[in-house]
């Protein structure tokens, strides 16, 4: 932290906790109140937890920064969350690092839809965002070409088996859950949908677009006006598909993740996407989305650090960072924010045995991406610290609003 005095220490802590993971002491787990805190959550990538697991779904820092991470049993050097004098702290080698809080459970979580589905399985809640993932199955994996950092299908298959959690949601369940969630004043500022890619249709992704239209319309029926603060994290749709999506739903912003901002590595790590669409076309489609949603209302996520996966990734952090920021600048200059999450080599992904880069790499990456938005006058309200919370770089933007 001494070396990066102009970077939020909360962002540095968040990045390191995510890359090294953490565990809980029994005292800290004892502080979990199942009536108040979230201990179950539907997520696309990562882990939905076991049926009886009562582990906090995530952490919040004093400044409102989210740490979106779950404990890893295989982490070699994890932080430890402990309860000391009635408060919860992140500790490292026995030293207190920062105070943390467990995420609160929204009022709708323990309710059921008319079909009997637990509402927490329909919409998960980040501190200020409703997350609805209508399809937890990615078709790229059907042909053995899933992205190597991702465990979406392994996670959803396990959740279906262990928790009876459906991989697909119904529009009626979505409508009823959003209706219930909106009864809680001040709880949410955004609605996000995401899904595994659906390749089928007359044109590739046509069925995925149809699914989003149906689900966004169901959610949108709860709002007074047609447009409402919302985003999707989806496949790279054609201009025709994007226009259809924009015109028929309340959607205001759009994300399609380029994942690895380097064509050669994209071809290796995201083999299916490269084979079916290609890096250049995936990128072109994201940039064209700016014509519909406007500059700053389109972002693209990268799995920060995955560009150093071996054996084909960069071996020098300087070289990797240079390549990533150059490509990010090309996006930014055309109205697209590049946002990064911290690559965690997850169980169930092809890269589960890999090692992520240094903390310093993530600090430089976050600052570099945030600085690019400043340079190109892009605000990222659609994907900021309170809307998503998964991007150290957009956390930095809040200290530097345009």
């Amino acid at each position: 932290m001494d070396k990066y005095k102009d970077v939020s220490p909360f962002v540095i802590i968040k990045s390191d906790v995510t890359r090294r993971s953490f565990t809980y002491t029994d005292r800290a787990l004892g502080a979990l109140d199942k009536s108040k805190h979230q201990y179950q959550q539907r997520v696309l990538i990562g882990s939905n937890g076991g049926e009886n697991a009562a582990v906090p779904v995530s952490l919040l820092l004093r400044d409102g920064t989210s740490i979106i991470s779950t404990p890893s049993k295989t982490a070699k050097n994890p932080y430890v969350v402990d309860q000391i004098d009635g408060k919860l702290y992140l500790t490292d080698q026995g030293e207190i690092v920062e105070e943390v809080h467990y995420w609160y459970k929204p009022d709708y979580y323990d309710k059921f839809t008319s079909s009997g589905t637990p509402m927490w399985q329909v919409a998960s809640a980040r501190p200020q965002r409703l997350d609805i993932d209508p399809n937890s199955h990615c078709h790229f994996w059907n042909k053995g070409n899933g992205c190597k950092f991702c465990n979406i299908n392994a996670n959803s298959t396990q959740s279906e088996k262990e928790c009876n959690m459906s991989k697909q949601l119904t529009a009626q369940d979505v409508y009823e859950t959003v209706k219930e969630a909106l009864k809680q004043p001040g709880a949410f500022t955004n609605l996000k949908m995401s899904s595994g890619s659906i390749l089928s249709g007359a044109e590739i992704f046509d069925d995925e677009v149809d699914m989003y239209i149906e689900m966004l319309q169901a959610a949108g029926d709860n709002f007074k006006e047609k447009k409402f603060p919302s985003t999707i994290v989806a496949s790279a749709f054609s201009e025709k598909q994007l226009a259809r999506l924009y015109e028929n739903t309340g959607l205001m912003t759009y994300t399609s993740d380029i994942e690895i901002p380097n064509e050669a590595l994209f071809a290796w790590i995201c083999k299916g996407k490269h084979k079916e669409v290609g890096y250049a076309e995936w990128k072109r489609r994201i940039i064209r989305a700016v014509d519909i949603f406007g500059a700053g209302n389109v972002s693209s996520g990268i799995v920060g650090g995955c560009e150093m996966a071996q054996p084909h990734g960069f071996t020098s952090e300087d070289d990797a960072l240079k390549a990533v920021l150059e490509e990010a600048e090309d996006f930014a200059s055309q109205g697209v924010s590049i946002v990064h999450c911290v690559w965690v080599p997850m169980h169930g992904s092809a890269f589960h045995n890999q090692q992520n880069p240094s903390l310093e790499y993530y600090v430089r990456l976050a600052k570099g991406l945030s600085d690019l938005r400043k340079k190109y006058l892009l605000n990222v309200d659609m994907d900021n610290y309170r809307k998503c919370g998964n991007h150290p770089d957009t956390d930095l933007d809040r200290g530097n609003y345009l």
Partner: protein
Amino acid sequence: MSILNERIQALLQNSGAAKVLATADKQGIPHIVSDPTISVNNEGKIIYLELIETSQSNVNLVNSIWFKRKVAIHLSKGEESYQIKGYPAYSVISGPVFEHYYKLSLERNPEFDLSTVWIIEPDEITDDTYAARKKKEREGHPLITHLDRLAK
């Protein structure tokens, strides 16, 4: 244990008192806002409700919590006047505390859309009345005064 005595806490709860929050940006340029809703919580910490996410005050408070910089609150009513300096300790954007103040804001004005509940830990208090400040000066700097004030 809060350093705010009962009198100051009562003044902070008084909606008729003048309350001003002073912050500074990254270059040190000051920014002040007058807000009669500044209050104190049960733990003796100061509550400032930020209604505008991208306001200068909010950005300055974010940088203050990140880099441990003090903010100041001027509090006065009638003959009483205090300056309280402290550190932003929590930026609450969700959960029961946020929702409590969100509802309170709505009661004050249905148009208010609360961004952040700032919890400020007071660190030092100065009696800001002229009498108190002059007394301190006289004691510390007895050579600084106009002679006519000492004439018979």
